[in-house]
């Protein structure tokens, strides 16, 4: 019998973390890094307390405050008493269980998926979990990273492991190069409309091909971040020189001989030539254009140059019904050019597009221009470090002179848990990851867009790309 011995990247990382394997049972997988935030952890710590169990590895655990924190007046007590209780509960739990916490006001505070990479804690070949579905972001470094529920948060706190059935493997190969002005966000939005929201279900996906290799780490994080939006268990990219260059010198990256040993190992983390994926998707980046969503899930997207679709455009009955409901909720007429859709609020930020590179791109476009009348531009850095870096580069001044609001770090309007919310019927162009009904505030209508589209939209007041600016 001929035997293929090759393994995919995700299989290599998985195999390195199996603590225990038994027939008929999920694998027991070791977790290298457990990230914690205020919303999905209180009940997990409560569970530990009730059972009298400690946190097994506080030194592999990191907490921050991001989901419900305000982005103005962050130096004052949180005004919303319920949010304040949740944040204070995290502080008490971190203290009691010996977990490192970066609270509001700390220089390392920020969105959990921004600060892991920024600190250099996110490294190739790791297993990383967090009670947040966008944990897939960390896959950009060649790690298996995925979101978990609160019961699993408790399980990881108590045991530093998770019971997990091994997912199937999928390759998403993106050939060619992205045209000028088309970004990683357009790439992943195009992919999700191609696959639908359930297309990745049950798979760990490896993104590969020339267009992926050409992305910066920030762009790779944007792609991996949205893996969950098409249902994938996790999404990852093989580490390469771009990855090593990003990591070297970061506070928690290995140093000296450790660095050399780590890099030597990381270089083995590639899919073998004779490895076989269970499924493969191939797309061509050179055909991609700015891409936006028109509906109420991330798979309902269209080219910016396209039209609002009609329910009749869909073959499956369920898709027709979903399109009808989405158009009603979004207040859109089939056949309207996307470029004519008027937007009230533009949000630049989130774990998808809240990194320094994103803010530089946005500032470059709004520089010397004014935000359109009746349009609001909200710029929310992903972390305190990103905010300080932007301020050092004068980006805050550029935004403020254009008429934008410059805020503090947090998840903010991505999910509307803090006061940054849309009002009923208000329409946004958002660099975040979800356009679900009410996601950004009850009755709010969200169009997911790239950073260049967001910035150009803020200037023109309708969905636009920088090419539309005079």
């Amino acid at each position, binding site marked *: 019998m001929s035997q293929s011995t090759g393994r995919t990247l995700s299989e290599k990382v998985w195999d390195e973390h199996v603590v225990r394997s038994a027939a008929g049972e999920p694998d027991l997988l070791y977790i290298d890094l457990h990230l914690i935030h205020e919303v999905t952890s209180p009940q997990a710590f409560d569970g530990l307390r009730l059972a009298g169990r400690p946190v097994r590895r506080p030194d592999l655990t990191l907490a921050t405050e991001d989901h419900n924190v305000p982005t103005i007046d962050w130096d004052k007590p949180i005004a919303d008493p319920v949010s304040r209780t949740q944040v204070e509960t995290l502080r008490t739990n971190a203290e009691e269980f010996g977990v490192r916490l970066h609270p509001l006001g700390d220089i390392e505070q920020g969105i959990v998926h921004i600060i892991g990479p920024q600190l250099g804690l996110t490294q190739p070949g790791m297993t990383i979990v967090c009670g947040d579905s966008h944990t897939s972001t960390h896959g950009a470094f060649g790690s298996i990273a995925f979101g978990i529920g609160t*019961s699993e948060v408790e399980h990881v706190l108590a045991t530093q492991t998770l019971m997990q059935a091994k997912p199937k493997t999928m390759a998403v190969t993106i050939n060619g190069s992205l045209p000028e002005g088309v970004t990683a966000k357009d790439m992943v939005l195009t992919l999700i409309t191609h696959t639908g929201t359930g297309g990745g279900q049950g798979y760990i996906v490896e993104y590969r091909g020339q267009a992926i290799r050409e992305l910066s780490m920030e762009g790779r994080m944007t792609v991996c971040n949205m893996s969950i939006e098409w249902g994938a268990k996790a999404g990852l990219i093989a580490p390469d020189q771009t990855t090593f260059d990003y990591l070297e010198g970061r506070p928690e990256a290995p140093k000296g001989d450790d660095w050399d*040993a*780590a890099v030597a190992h990381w270089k083995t983390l590639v899919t073998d030539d004779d490895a076989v994926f269970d499924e493969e998707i191939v797309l061509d980046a050179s055909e991609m254009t700015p891409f936006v969503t028109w509906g109420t899930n991330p798979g309902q997207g269209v080219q910016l140059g396209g039209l609002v679709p009609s329910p009749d455009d869909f073959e499956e009955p369920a898709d027709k019904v979903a399109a009808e409901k989405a158009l009603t909720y979004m207040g859109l007429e089939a056949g309207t050019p996307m470029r004519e859709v008027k937007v009230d609020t533009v949000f630049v930020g989130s774990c998808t597009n809240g990194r320094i590179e994103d803010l530089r791109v946005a500032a470059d476009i709004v520089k010397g221009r004014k935000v359109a009348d009746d349009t609001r531009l909200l710029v929310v850095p992903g972390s305190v470090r990103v905010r300080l870096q932007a301020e050092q580069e004068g980006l805050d001044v550029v935004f403020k002179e254009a008429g934008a609001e410059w805020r503090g770090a947090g998840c903010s309007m991505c999910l509307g848990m803090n006061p940054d919310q849309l009002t009923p019927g208000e329409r946004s162009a958002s660099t975040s990851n979800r356009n679900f009904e009410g996601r950004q505030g009850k009755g709010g209508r969200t169009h997911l867009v790239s950073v260049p589209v967001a910035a150009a939209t803020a200037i023109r007041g309708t969905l636009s790309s920088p090419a539309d600016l005079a």
Partner: protein
Amino acid sequence: MDKFTSHTGIGVPLRRSNVDTDQIIPAVYLKRVTRSGFEDGLFAAWRNDPAFVLNNPVYDGGSVLVAGPDFGTGSSREHAVWALQNYGFKAVISSRFADIFRGNSGKAGLLAAQVDEKVAQRLLDLLDEEPGATITVDLESRTVRAGSGENAIEDSFDIDDYTRWRLLEGLDDVGITLGHADDITTYEATRPSWKPVTQRA
């Protein structure tokens, strides 16, 4: 966790696909630090609509939700499972569940029964014809049953063996894993020294 063997209750039809966890419970309801009290946030936006199924008194006490495909997509919030349980649901039936939601259900003791798309459709049709009809989900035999006579529906549902065993026995995952503590310790001794830590001794 309570043992789950079989449950019979009023079926509630939710004729929507892609019901994401932001619809099941919006983020503004996630600020509690307990596992209870989330029923108020369940399908909060839709409950403002008098025509929404949960506002129909026929479904008062409903405990088996039948939904369209891709139920529970999006956010990892286990609060979505708790909200369904706090409201009184014991089981959700769909032709496809998002991975994280299905995992969370298994951990928290809500039965996520995956059925063939045709079976889900027949259950929805039955509930339209006979509002208030009951559905039985039998975990022991992995069977879903509803209706009678010519309309009787009986078919199997999918659930992985391990989750089924844990639900039947009402087992605590952490307790099971701590039974393998020696394996974990042995594994830890093999981890490379350059792996990152968040704090040093």
